[in-house]
C-alpha cells in the first residue's frame, strides 16, 4: 500500500495540548516539514516563548530552549552567534513578541540576526485567558477590554511585519495564514523561504502567521476561520512585505 501522508519526523509523538480549531498545530507541522525538507532538522535549535506555545519544546523533534516571556530573540541571538552554521528559530505569539518582547524582536531584526522568527498572531492573549493583545483589533472584545478595544484607550493594533520590514537587517518578512489549502501552501513556502535565506546568511527572516483562537474568541473553529478572514486579513494584509533579495534583483 502506498503511503500518501505521514506525520513529519520533524515532530515528536507527543500529543498536542492545543484547543480544537487552534492553528498552532498546523504551523508547527509546516516548520517541522521545512526543517526535514531542507535537511536542517539534525542541527536545528528552536526557542519557544511564553504563551500557548510554551510547550513547543515537547513537539519539535530538535533541540529546544524555553525562553522567558518575550526574550526568545535575545536567546536565539546567543545561540546563533555561537552556532552560525545551524538553523535557529524562534516561535512566538503576539503577547510575547509584540508586547513584552518588542525591544528584543526589533533589535534582533536591526542587527540582522541570522535566525528565523515565526510569529503567530491570533489577536489575543491565549494562555492567560483572552486578555487584550497589542494586535487585538478595534472593537474586538477581550477580558481586559470587555466592551471592545478602543483607539482612545489602547491605540491602533500593531502591524509587526510592516514595522520590522523598515529595518535593513530584516531581509524577509511575509504575512500568511493557514485557513485553507492554498493559504497553507503559501505559508509553507514562506517558512521555507525564510529558512533558506537564514541558511544563506542573508539576515533576519520573519514570517507572521495569522491564527485563530476559537476558545478566547468565543467562536466555533469554523466561525473562527470566517472571523479571521473577515476581520484580521483586512487589517493585516497577507503577502510578501519585504524581500531584500528581490529588491536587489
Amino acid at each position: 500500500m502506498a503511503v500518501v501522508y505521514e506525520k513529519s519526523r520533524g515532530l515528536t509523538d507527543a500529543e498536542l495540548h492545543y484547543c480544537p480549531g487552534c492553528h498552532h498545530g498546523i504551523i508547527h507541522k509546516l516548520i517541522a516539514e521545512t526543517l526535514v525538507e531542507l535537511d536542517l532538522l539534525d542541527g536545528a535549535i528552536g526557542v519557544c516563548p511564553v504563551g500557548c506555545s510554551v510547550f513547543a519544546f515537547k513537539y519539535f523533534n530538535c533541540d529546544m530552549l524555553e525562553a522567558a516571556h518575550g526574550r526568545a530573540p535575545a536567546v536565539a541571538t546567543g545561540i546563533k552567534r555561537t552556532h552560525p552554521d545551524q538553523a535557529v528559530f524562534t516561535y512566538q505569539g503576539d503577547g510575547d513578541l509584540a508586547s513584552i518582547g518588542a525591544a528584543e524582536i526589533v533589535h534582533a531584526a536591526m542587527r540582522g540576526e541570522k535566525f528565523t522568527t515565526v510569529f503567530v498572531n491570533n489577536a489575543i492573549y491565549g494562555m492567560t485567558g483572552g486578555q487584550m493583545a497589542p494586535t487585538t483589533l478595534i472593537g474586538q472584545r477581550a477580558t481586559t477590554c470587555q466592551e471592545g478595544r478602543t483607539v482612545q484607550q489602547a491605540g491602533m493594533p500593531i502591524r509587526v511585519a510592516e514595522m520590522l520590514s523598515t529595518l535593513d537587517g530584516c531581509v524577509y518578512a511575509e504575512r500568511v495564514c493557514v485557513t485553507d489549502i492554498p493559504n497553507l501552501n503559501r505559508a509553507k513556502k514562506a517558512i521555507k523561504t525564510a529558512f533558506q535565506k537564514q541558511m544563506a546568511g542573508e539576515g533576519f527572516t520573519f514570517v507572521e502567521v495569522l491564527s485563530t483562537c476559537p476558545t478566547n474568541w468565543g467562536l466555533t473553529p469554523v466561525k473562527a476561520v470566517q472571523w479571521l478572514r473577515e476581520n484580521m486579513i483586512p487589517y493585516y494584509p497577507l503577502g510578501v512585505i519585504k524581500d531584500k533579495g528581490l529588491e536587489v534583483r
Partner: protein
Amino acid sequence: MAKELWKGNEAIAEAAIRAGCDCFFGYPITPQSEVPEYMSSHLPKAGGVFVQSESEVAAINMVYGAAGAGMRAMTSSSSPGISLKQEGITYLAAAELPCVIVNVMRGGPGLGTIQPGQGDYFQATRGGGNGDYRTVVLAPSNVQETADFVQEAFDIADQYRSPVVVLADGLIGQMMEPIEWRPVPKRQLPAKDWAACGKKGRDHTNVINSLFLNPEECDALNQRLTVKYAEIEKNEVRWETALCQDAEVLITAYGTPARIALTALDLLREQGIRAGLFRPVTLWPFPEKALGEIAAEPHVKVILDVEMSSTGQMLDDVRLAVEGRKPIRYLGHAGGIMPTVEEMIEAAKTALKEAQ
C-alpha cells in the same frame, strides 16, 4: 612571572578570555563599561563572540541562549543593570545553566551614584529574582583576586551547572594595580551532554527549560537544586582571616572595605588594641561556621561589621553566624563614600569600650 599593570575592569575581561570564555553579551553602564569595551576588541580576536545588547535584559537572555547551547558565556554590569538581569538569572538558575555574571557595584538605591557601593549584597546572596535559588558569589578585594576569581568562576559554574556571580565594586573596577597572570586551579568538569546545541545524530532532543506545571515535577527541580546548593555549601565556602588569633575586636568586611580594614588593624595594634579581620571571600555560601567559631572564642569581645552600605546587608549573615554570642556593631556608608581607616579605628575603639 612579571607583574603587569591592569585596570580592574580590563583585567575582568582579559581573565575571562584566558578562561576560555566563548561569548560576552553586555550593555554600557558606569563603572563597568571597560569590560564590554575590552571584550568588543579582544574577544573576537581570540575566536569568541561579542554582542552589545539592546538592554541588560537582552544581554542576560543572550547568555541564557549561548549557555543553554553549551558555550562558556558571560555578562557584566553594575548595580541598576544587575537589577534588570534578575529575571534572566532566576531562569538560568532554574534551567541549571552555567555562566559568569560580574557586578561592578555602585551606590544605590535607584540610579544612585556611579561611585563604589556594596548595596547589592542581598540581591546577590538571596537570589534577586523569583523563586528558591542561589548563585555562588565570589567577592574579590583587589585586582589580582578579581582576575583569579573571574577565571575560576567559569570552572565553578561548569562544575555545578549554576550561574556564578563575581561581586566587585567600582573601586576595584576602576583601579589599576600590578597583577600576575598566575595559573588558577583547574577542575575536572563534567561533559555538557545536556546542551541544546543541535541533535547531530543524538537519539533524543535536549531541552533547556524552567517550566514545570506539574507540582511534583517543580518540587523535584527544587529538591535537586537544594541538594546541589548543599554540595556547594560543603565544597566552596571560602574566607580569610588576619590577626584573629587573639583579637578582642573582630572586624567583618568583604571586598574593598576589607582591604581598608587591614591598615586599620595595624594602626589599632600600634595603639595596643588587638584587632582582627574576618573576610568572607564567598558571600554565598557564607562562611557561617568559621565566623561563628572565631566569634565564640573568649578573647573576642565585640564584632564590628563594616560595609559600603547604609544599613548593613552582610550584617544579617554576620548576626546569623554569631548567634547572639557577642555584641555586634556596624559602620557603613552608602552613596559612594568609602569607610576610612580613621573611622574604622574610632568605631573599633567605641565598640570595644561599649562591650567592656
